[in-house]
């Protein structure tokens, strides 16, 4: 895997950055040009993202497609290493050495899990620009920061170098802070923006220390006892020829993990391996951004305070950044730690699912309902990771995409209603489907997805997660000192399923009240239908829910191929 050529992914990162810089230099009064550059850049990255998504399988290096190739290898019964499978699954790679003496490289690529995320980011980027079309206050700065945010998010999804993942992760935080603090809901924005930023940063810097520790542990291994493994990987082409023993390349770190470099005992405590010690830092550090209980507190406030476009990208994409990074930097690089810790972390995710749904049910504010529903649905993603089997994790991967599009759609709907009615108080809204039929239909589609109706993407995502939980129930045992807890995943899945019922309850309540109730024609006399740009937003975000629901093979095998290396690493079949 040389990855010397130019990759489309590089264009995907740099188009928004360049667009953002150009926009900053424009005349602030030239709003049309600002919007024009914004939508052009966003459409370009969406087009490239579509190319990445649909081109992933047929990417040139594999005959008959990457996914079928992987399947054929598995069927041949070969004993495949997780690191090798991960490296094989990467498409559109590009690698430029950045800081050679530290093994840091600009290294991008997508695998089966990140390709759908790239597509999702593109969709939300376009939708976000369109829904911000009529922002009055400092449109230029808004658009520029939005572009930087999009670039940062893309960077995390396509990073193959662990350092680069952190670089873009931190890069995304600052524009997000300014967007919320500068353009958000006046009552809450400063508090919420700061709270969100601090929560996320605290998580990520602890993860960063963990990552540095991993870098040294892996380096010491490859320079010492693992030198032959390193040489073998170099000669087989698994690692680039100019690799050093100390490196941030995730393939190399995965290889170290697979060969037991992180199983070393630390602090002199028996049973406390390196992987076990650092896994909570890595997984929960990023899990903060995925809203894992008890670190979910920033999320509803953040979503509610943010301007619509930012809520969309935030709940739609950024929370997935957290879940994705927790998977990549946590589960993939420290599988031994995952074995130990995920069996108790699953309790936290259960709280997410049920408690989030219950609180959503109690909200009067339309946007808070959606904010807490995100907490609840993201809990399902983490729960999927915790199953540690192919079915459950694949479901979680699909849920990331499905929930991303769905929640962005929800926030778009809330924004459209709020812009025209100037209130988000559910009891005082009603009958809006009469004046805004498109919005009403979009909400219903999103709502049905959210409660897992077959035929929509939510079902495709949630069903495998629950199935995976049942399957995991027999295999996973939680050690609590001398006490062993087993077969409890089955119990949890029953409780988690009740979250779906609660979801149905609050979705129906909101739909019934806001869209079907009594319409107050006097108060809302000036509420009109939405215009073309808003309709495009609803289509971009709504259509994938239906397409994926009706035709899962468009995405499921791809995610499965991205999950298989992890299963190999976790020691499963």
């Amino acid at each position: 895997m040389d990855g010397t050529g130019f990759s489309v992914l590089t264009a995907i990162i740099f188009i928004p950055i360049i667009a953002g810089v150009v926009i900053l230099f424009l005349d602030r009064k030239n709003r049309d040009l600002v919007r024009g550059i914004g939508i052009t850049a966003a459409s370009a990255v969406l087009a490239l993202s579509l190319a990445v998504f649909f081109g992933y399988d047929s990417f040139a290096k594999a005959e008959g497609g990457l996914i079928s190739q992987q399947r054929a290898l598995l069927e041949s019964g070969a004993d495949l290493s997780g690191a090798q499978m991960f490296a094989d699954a990467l498409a559109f790679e590009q690698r430029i050495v950045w800081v050679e003496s530290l093994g840091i490289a600009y290294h991008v690529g997508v695998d089966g899990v990140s390709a759908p995320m790239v597509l999702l980011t593109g969709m939300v980027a376009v939708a976000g620009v369109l829904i911000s079309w009529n922002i009055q206050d400092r449109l230029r700065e808004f658009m520029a920061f939005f572009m930087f945010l999009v670039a940062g998010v893309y960077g995390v999804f396509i990073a193959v170098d662990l350092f680069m993942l952190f670089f873009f992760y931190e890069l995304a935080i600052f524009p997000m802070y300014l967007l919320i603090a500068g353009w958000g809901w006046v009552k809450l924005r400063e508090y919420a923006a700061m709270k969100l930023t601090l929560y996320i940063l605290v998580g990520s810097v602890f993860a960063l220390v963990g990552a540095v520790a991993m870098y040294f542990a892996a380096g010491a291994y490859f320079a010492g006892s693992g030198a032959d493994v390193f040489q073998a990987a170099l000669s087989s082409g698994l690692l680039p020829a100019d690799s050093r023993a100390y490196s941030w390349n995730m393939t190399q770190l995965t290889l170290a993990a697979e060969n037991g470099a992180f199983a070393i005992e630390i602090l002199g405590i028996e049973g406390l391996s390196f992987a076990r010690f650092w896994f909570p830092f890595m997984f929960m550090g990023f899990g903060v951004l995925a809203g894992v209980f008890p670190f979910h507190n920033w999320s509803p406030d953040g979503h509610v305070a943010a301007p619509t476009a930012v809520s969309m990208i935030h709940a739609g994409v950024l929370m997935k950044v957290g879940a994705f990074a927790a998977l990549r930097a946590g589960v993939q690089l420290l599988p031994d730690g995952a074995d130990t810790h995920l069996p108790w972390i699953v309790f936290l995710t259960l709280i997410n699912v049920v408690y989030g749904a219950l609180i959503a049910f109690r909200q009067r504010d339309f946007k808070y309902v959606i904010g807490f529903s995100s907490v609840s649905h993201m809990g399902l993603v983490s729960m999927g990771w915790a199953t540690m089997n192919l079915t459950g994790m694949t479901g979680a991967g699909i849920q990331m995409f499905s929930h991303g599009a769905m929640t962005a759609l929800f926030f778009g709907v809330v924004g459209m209603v709020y812009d025209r009615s100037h209130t988000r108080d559910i009891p005082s809204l009603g009958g809006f489907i009469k004046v805004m039929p498109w919005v009403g239909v979009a909400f219903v589609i999103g709502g049905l997805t959210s409660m897992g109706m077959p035929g929509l993407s939510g079902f495709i995502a949630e069903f495998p997660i629950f199935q995976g939980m049942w399957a995991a129930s027999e295999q996973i045992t939680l050690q609590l000192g001398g006490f062993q807890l087993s077969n409890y995943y089955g119990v949890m899945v029953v409780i988690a399923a009740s979250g779906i019922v609660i979801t149905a309850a609050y979705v129906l309540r909101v739909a019934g009240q806001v869209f079907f109730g009594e319409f107050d024609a006097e108060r809302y006399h000036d509420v009109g239908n939405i215009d073309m740009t808003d309709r495009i937003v609803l289509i971009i975000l709504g259509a994938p829910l239906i397409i994926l629901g009706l035709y899962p093979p468009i995405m499921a095998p791809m995610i499965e191929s991205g999950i298989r290396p992890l299963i190999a690493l976790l020691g499963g079949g």
Partner: protein
Amino acid sequence: MEFSLWAQLPSVLPEIGLTTLAIVVLFADLYGSVVTRRNVVYISAAGMALLALVPLVWLPDPALYESGTLLWGGMVNYDPLSQIFKVMLLLAGAVTCLMAAGDKGVGDKGEFYLIVIVATLGGVMMSSASDLILVFVALETLSIPLYMLACFRRGDARSAEGGMKYFLYGAFASAIMLFGFSLLYGFTGTTNLGGIADALGVGAGDSIVGVMTALVMVVVGFGFKISAVPFHFWTPDVYEGAPTPVTAFVSVSSKAASFALLVRFLTAAFPVELVVGGVIIQDFWVNLLIVISIVSMTLGNVVALRQSNIKRLLAYSSIAQAGYTLIGVAALQGVDDSLAVASVSFYMFMYIFTNLLVFGGVILFIAATDTEEISDMAGLNRRSPWLALFITIGLLSLGGIPPAAGFFGKFFLFQAAVDANLVGLALIAVTNAIIALYYYLVIIKVMYVDAGPDDDKPIALPRAYAWSLGITAVVVILLGTIAVTPIYDWATLGAAGL
């Protein structure tokens, strides 16, 4: 090995150049025409910028520094560590001159530039000194001009007070340090840093208490210069009282030069293998520095949270930054020190530009509005978008957010700490980085989000000034992206001469 005078000359060329430049500037200011006097600033800035090229062109011979050979009778090191610090000090001097140019009562006086040049001379000497005598001479050559600069605005009571405080504390710290030096000399009978280690190694200072006392006294002196807790009391008052260009200069030059010297002093005089009276002396100073580092960053950051004056806030932030940088010095304990040395050098390199950028922006803001309150920065984005952007880039770099240079700077420090098995210290440092980010973000929020009463009054950004700020900002971004590799590799070389 014998060297001809000619072969030794490049090692002190910047010093000779600075002395010449000082004389030129002195006479140009005294006897020059009005036009010449107005151009003193450009003569000084261009002179120092040109001299910064000298260490880049005349590279030291690796055979020389790897064998530990000293020049000029054992006084001067000629190695990459000294070169990198010389470059950054000279650039810092040049940028300071440009930033002071328009400042009333400071930049319009020719002697200001003279004093800056002499102070830079002291710093440049410090970064290559390898003998206690030269160390002290260099230190005072840097310090005395800084005392003068701090009270440069003679009519202003705050400036006078700041200068006086700085002088009194400084003189006291110098005296303690000098006492430490004399103890070391007394134990070992030599003033050469390497010689001290050799003599201690063969039992010259068998009284461990005496050696430790000397070491602590030296650390006190350095602690004062880098404004580490508990020797930081002068910092807020001097930063607040001194004319802002001076504050900028004090905050970078004296700190960078002292770190260069601290690294060299500890590794040369108290190296890894040194055992005195059965005690591994290195463990002692590493632990001492860890404590100072933790206290400095925590106190600096926590107190900075409560500041409403931008210069005082930056003062406490610089105390915290000294604490971070000390992590790199405390990590100097492996056999291969290159990570730690490189992290300190890189951090100082990026810190100089970052701090000058922030202060440069703040200078202009204070000059235009005559207020130093953070709350008065409200709406700065509307009054001068460029100024707000420059300050923001600087603050992001201080806070360690990519793509600004500070991200890599902090990352290298934490990495060095983890490598030296100081994971706990690294965790405390990242926690501190978050606290710090809070107050940096608040300033950015005030500039971009809050509405101020003077929103409609634009602040003019003079063209020359905008260029110098702009270039500094670009350097800060480059140091965080594509220029990381060359500078970091250069910084890594620095360990070779130790």
